[in-house]
């Protein structure tokens, strides 16, 4: 049984940038972070293989983020999954499933890391990803959303996937 078990852990250095509007690597007291602007919608990719002990359930992502300057307001995170299965997807074009979102309040104290979760049900939301298959995650800050009210950069410290 894999329910509740961690499927993947990503840190800032494990990200890869899109061709444009990418979150930027930074450090905060020597902690590697990814900075997401509060005006331009920026994103990052993370890539892995879903472990063989994945048992067919949904996935829950935990996003650990801090705020470069803000101690108030909300951040809107969008997360989407792209399945790269055997001899099927042409990786020369993106093929992400629809993003799932969370609106998370900024940590009340500067420097603290807030944990926010996004749940994916098995199937279409996960792009029908199966055990042993390669996948990409796209984590974006929806800075244009009216719900994204936090000023300044949002910093990604880690991203964890666990089976729901």
């Amino acid at each position, binding site marked *: 049984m894999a329910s509740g078990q961690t499927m993947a852990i990503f840190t800032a250095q494990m990200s890869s940038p899109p061709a444009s509007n990418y979150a930027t690597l930074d450090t*905060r007291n020597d902690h590697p972070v990814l*900075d997401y*602007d*509060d*005006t331009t919608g920026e994103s990052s990719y993370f890539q892995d293989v879903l472990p063989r002990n994945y048992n067919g359930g949904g996935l829950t992502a935990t996003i650990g983020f801090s705020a*470069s*300057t*803000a*101690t*108030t*307001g909300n951040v809107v995170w969008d997360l989407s999954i792209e399945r790269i299965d055997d001899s099927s997807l042409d990786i020369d074009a993106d093929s992400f499933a629809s993003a799932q979102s969370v609106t998370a309040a900024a940590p009340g104290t*500067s*420097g603290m890391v807030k944990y926010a979760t996004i749940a994916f049900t098995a199937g279409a939301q996960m792009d029908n990803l199966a055990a042993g298959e390669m996948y990409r995650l796209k984590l974006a800050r929806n800075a244009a959303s009216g719900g*994204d*009210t*936090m*000023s*300044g*950069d949002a910093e990604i410290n880690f991203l964890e996937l666990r089976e729901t």
Partner: protein
Amino acid sequence: MAVLSPAQRQAVRSAWAQKLSIDHDPCSLTKLQMQAAVDAADDWAEANAASFNSALPLAARTNLTAAQKAQLLAYVVLKRWGGQL
């Protein structure tokens, strides 16, 4: 000179937020609240531009361009509050 356009004011807010982010300078304002502050500061600058100009000594008032006068004010204000020149 007229007040900044909405797009220019938004650019100022964004740049200010970036500066605060780079410095990790805590700021408890939302994006909307920051924008309101930028807008008010621009309105104040517009309303008091003539007064600032009149406060300058004659040589500066007659020989500096408007942009240079603005730079002068910016440098003095930044230095007063510990900003980097």
